[in-house]
């Protein structure tokens, strides 16, 4: 029990690291995901192909392999960045593929009449998408995006094994200090529950406020 009280700052640092990773990677994933989704529905062929390749490849890449390639591979190109930034890049790009698919299926739920009406008012593709379709799609993608971001928070655990400060990594120093390993993991589990439950609480609020009433 005293594992937590004795090492509060260590756990706190780990939890903070996980939260930071999750927040930054989420922002990157959301931005990239929206861009890729608009590429995939664009009238320009090469952009569509690019979006499709991006999603297909990243969705089928094991995240560990991506971490391996980004964190250990990019430095060989002379790209030297802090490991945390590399981790955010890997997590963000990986998750963007799932966000993209969620957004794209959200776009498909918007009735065709909306897009047709926008076009008949003379709006361009960019205007139709950003002013009419995406705001409506946003309402129906809240739940899938929420669960994607929860998956992102859970996936951030992998970063710990690549020497980034985060929650799961705290087991190592505690293990060396000789604390009960089972309790160490119990508190790590509690930490992850706090993170995932907060995300789902946030998205429940968003869903209540903006979601499509079912």
């Amino acid at each position: 029990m005293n594992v937590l009280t004795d090492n509060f700052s260590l756990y706190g640092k780990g939890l903070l690291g996980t939260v930071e990773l999750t927040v930054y990677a989420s922002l990157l994933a959301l931005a990239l995901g929206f861009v890729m989704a608009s590429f995939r529905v664009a009238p320009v062929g090469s952009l569509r192909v690019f979006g499709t390749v991006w999603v297909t490849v990243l969705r089928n890449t094991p995240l560990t392999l991506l971490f391996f390639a980004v964190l250990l591979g990019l430095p060989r190109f002379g790209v030297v960045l802090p490991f945390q930034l590399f981790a955010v890049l890997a997590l963000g790009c990986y998750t963007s593929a799932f966000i993209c698919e969620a957004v794209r299926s959200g776009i498909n739920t918007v009735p065709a009449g909306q897009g047709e009406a926008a076009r008949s008012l003379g709006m361009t593709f960019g205007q139709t998408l950003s002013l009419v379709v995406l705001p409506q799609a946003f309402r129906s993608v809240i739940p899938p995006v929420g669960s994607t971001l929860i998956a992102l928070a859970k996936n951030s655990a992998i970063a710990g094994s690549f020497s980034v400060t985060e929650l799961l990594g705290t087991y190592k120093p505690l293990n060396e200090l000789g604390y009960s390993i089972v309790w160490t993991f119990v508190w790590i589990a509690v930490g992850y529950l706090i993170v995932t439950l907060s995300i789902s609480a946030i998205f429940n609020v968003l869903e209540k406020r903006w979601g499509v009433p079912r």
Partner: protein
Amino acid sequence: MTDTALYDIPGPRARRRHLVYGLAATVVILGIVAWVLYLLFDTHQFTAEKWRPFVYEGIQEMLLRGLGNTLKAFAYAAVLSLALGGLLAAGRLSDHRIVRWIATVFVEFFRAMPVLVMIFFVFVALKVQPLPALVTGLTLYNGSVLAEVFRSGVNSVDRGQREAAYALGMRKTQVMGHVLVPQALRAMLPTIISQLVVALKDTSLGFLITYEEFLHAGKLIASNLDYGLPFIPVVMIISPIYIGMCMLLSWLATWVAKRQRRSLKTEAVEVAPAEPGTLLPGAGQIHP
């Protein structure tokens, strides 16, 4: 590209404009590719020294052994998580409240935990060998997710089927075994296969607990000074194989789904592709 409401069917001017945009985008993308290639050549990734190890039989064997270990872990994890998933789904559909309650807590807990935490717990705290630790972690997580898939599949079979079966005087096990599960299984197959893709991808987590799988073999080659640390070549060889395997399995899922959309047998069942209706932690099934 015809059935979209987002833009009109382009006329001659729009087509020309799209062509210009398309060419510009292609140039930008090709530019990025060229830049990466330049970086690759500039940092001497294509020297014979770095690619030499892949000619040696011993190293090819090591890679193949790693691949075999990956597939072994995947096979164990797939079979066991299907079994666990079936068991947990049966528990969640049980008529006894205690069984239902235990199964629900189990499923919700293991869906909310990162797989890696479970794997590390089994590996570090229970001091188990890497392979069983990896398989246990994957089984607990994917089993719990699959339990939800099975349950929603069985629940989505048309209500009339269940009622008709009971009206014929079948017992609950018979209704399940003869009527509901066969129909549900057929409709759930694509979702199950996509979940197996997740399991296959996650076998690479074994790398982090020193299980001697594909990535581990790659790391061994990559950190060899004799070949000038051929890190990029290793990634270039390993990723297509890994991604290819996952893609094959994903395509199998899409193919099955497409085939079923044409088949009459699945008409009674309308399975929502395990998309999150709830916002419980870990509701993200299809993804990691």
